[in-house]
């Protein structure tokens, strides 16, 4: 397995960025090669998208997965999973059933070489707060996560604020349990300062300053380097990347920044998300040195 021994922030790609193409004009190997073209190593996959015959891939598929990681110098970093206790309309899953679903994903993530999970839970209100038994579900899975060296991380994303209640609740849980197997994934949309004229913005949204991330760094195991608009001069025009990266480097953060493009225009005829990703990676490579 390829080892990327660099310390500090490292770049990678969330394969969700290829959503408009995956299964149609790009297969998994082509996504891997695209990442390799950019000189990047880290990837995030979505369990329910990129794993053939999920949740029961064959041994042959898994062996091929490892062969592709070796061929393209890929480091599996983050496994995107859903603990969907609302998967049935008729009733919620019990805590035990939710833990079973989560455990299945922890085992599969480990089998594919991942060390971090971007764990999504059902939400109960429009502030995106998770189901009331989230602590019991996570606690139920912590022993297995510890055994398999897996760090489960909910993603903190616009309109949430790094100083808000949801993040505080997660940090309180981490401190109370002392766990090293539950943490945070920060999506850089929380730092977004520029919006287009007429673009809808959640009235509750308040942009975080880059230094707001500092107290959370010990709990952050992976980040989504979100980008909205890359100029042809290789600058992100809505999120202050140079400042964010400087803060993370100066505070000794070690981990991956996985670039993610959520833009609806990637579904438009002729849009080439690979070219947009390359622009971001030129920017990241210049800021990170590698």
């Amino acid at each position: 397995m390829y080892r990327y021994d660099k310390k500090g922030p490292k770049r990678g790609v969330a394969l969700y960025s290829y959503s408009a193409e995956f299964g149609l004009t790009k297969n998994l190997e082509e996504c891997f090669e695209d990442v390799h073209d950019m000189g990047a190593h880290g990837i995030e996959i979505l369990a329910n998208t990129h794993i053939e015959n999920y949740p029961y891939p064959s041994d042959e598929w898994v062996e091929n997965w490892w062969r592709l990681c070796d061929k393209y110098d890929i480091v599996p970093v983050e496994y995107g999973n859903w603990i969907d206790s609302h998967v049935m309309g008729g009733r919620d899953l019990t805590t035990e059933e939710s833990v079973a679903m989560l455990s299945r994903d922890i085992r599969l993530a480990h089998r594919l070489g991942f060390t971090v999970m971007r764990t999504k839970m059902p939400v109960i209100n429009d502030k995106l707060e998770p189901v009331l038994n989230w602590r019991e579900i996570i606690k139920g899975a912590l022993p297995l996560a510890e055994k398999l060296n897996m760090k489960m991380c909910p993603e903190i994303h616009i309109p949430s604020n790094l100083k808000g209640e949801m993040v505080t609740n997660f940090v309180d849980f981490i401190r109370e349990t002392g766990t090293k197997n539950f943490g945070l994934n920060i999506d850089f949309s929380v730092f977004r300062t520029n919006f287009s004229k007429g673009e809808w913005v959640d009235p509750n949204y308040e942009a975080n300053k880059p230094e707001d991330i500092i107290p959370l760094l010990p709990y952050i195991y992976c980040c989504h380097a979100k980008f909205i608009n890359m100029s042809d001069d290789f600058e992100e025009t809505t999120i202050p990347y140079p400042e964010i990266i400087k803060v993370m480097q100066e505070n000794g953060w070690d981990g991956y920044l996985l670039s993610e493009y959520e833009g609806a225009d990637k579904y438009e005829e002729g849009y080439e998300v690979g070219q947009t990703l390359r622009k971001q990676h030129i920017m990241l490579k210049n800021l990170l040195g590698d």
Partner: protein
Amino acid sequence: MERQVIQSVGFRNIAENGKITGFQFKIRLPYYRGVFLSQLRPGTLTVDGETFGKDEIVWNFCSEDYTWEEMTTNYDQHWAVTKPATLKVKKEGGLKQGFHDLTYGFCFTSSYMPPVIQDHLDPDSENMVFMPEFGHHVNSRRLLIV
């Protein structure tokens, strides 16, 4: 696999014991991730103005048939974005040779999305806010039976 939700490959009449008993068509999941069967909300099929409700449509995944009721409690079988599902409809004599206009509606739950969207899912009409990574609920296509 074609970009359109209703695939042209897989549209044909079904014969059982030498008689045409119905027809089938294939659809792909236009979502950015796969779903478990219990997340599906099958809707109405219209072919040349004739409607078929969800009780009249059988879904087939990996060679196994499921009624919509069986799917509501099945959160073990997963529908991948890369594998179209086959939908089978009983109709004596099937569809005549020639052009047919198909319109089919279906959607699925996404529990990490806010209730303001999730509480108003209707397979036969579009979401109030269209997001391309979720796809359209209702899709149409004009196809030929030989």
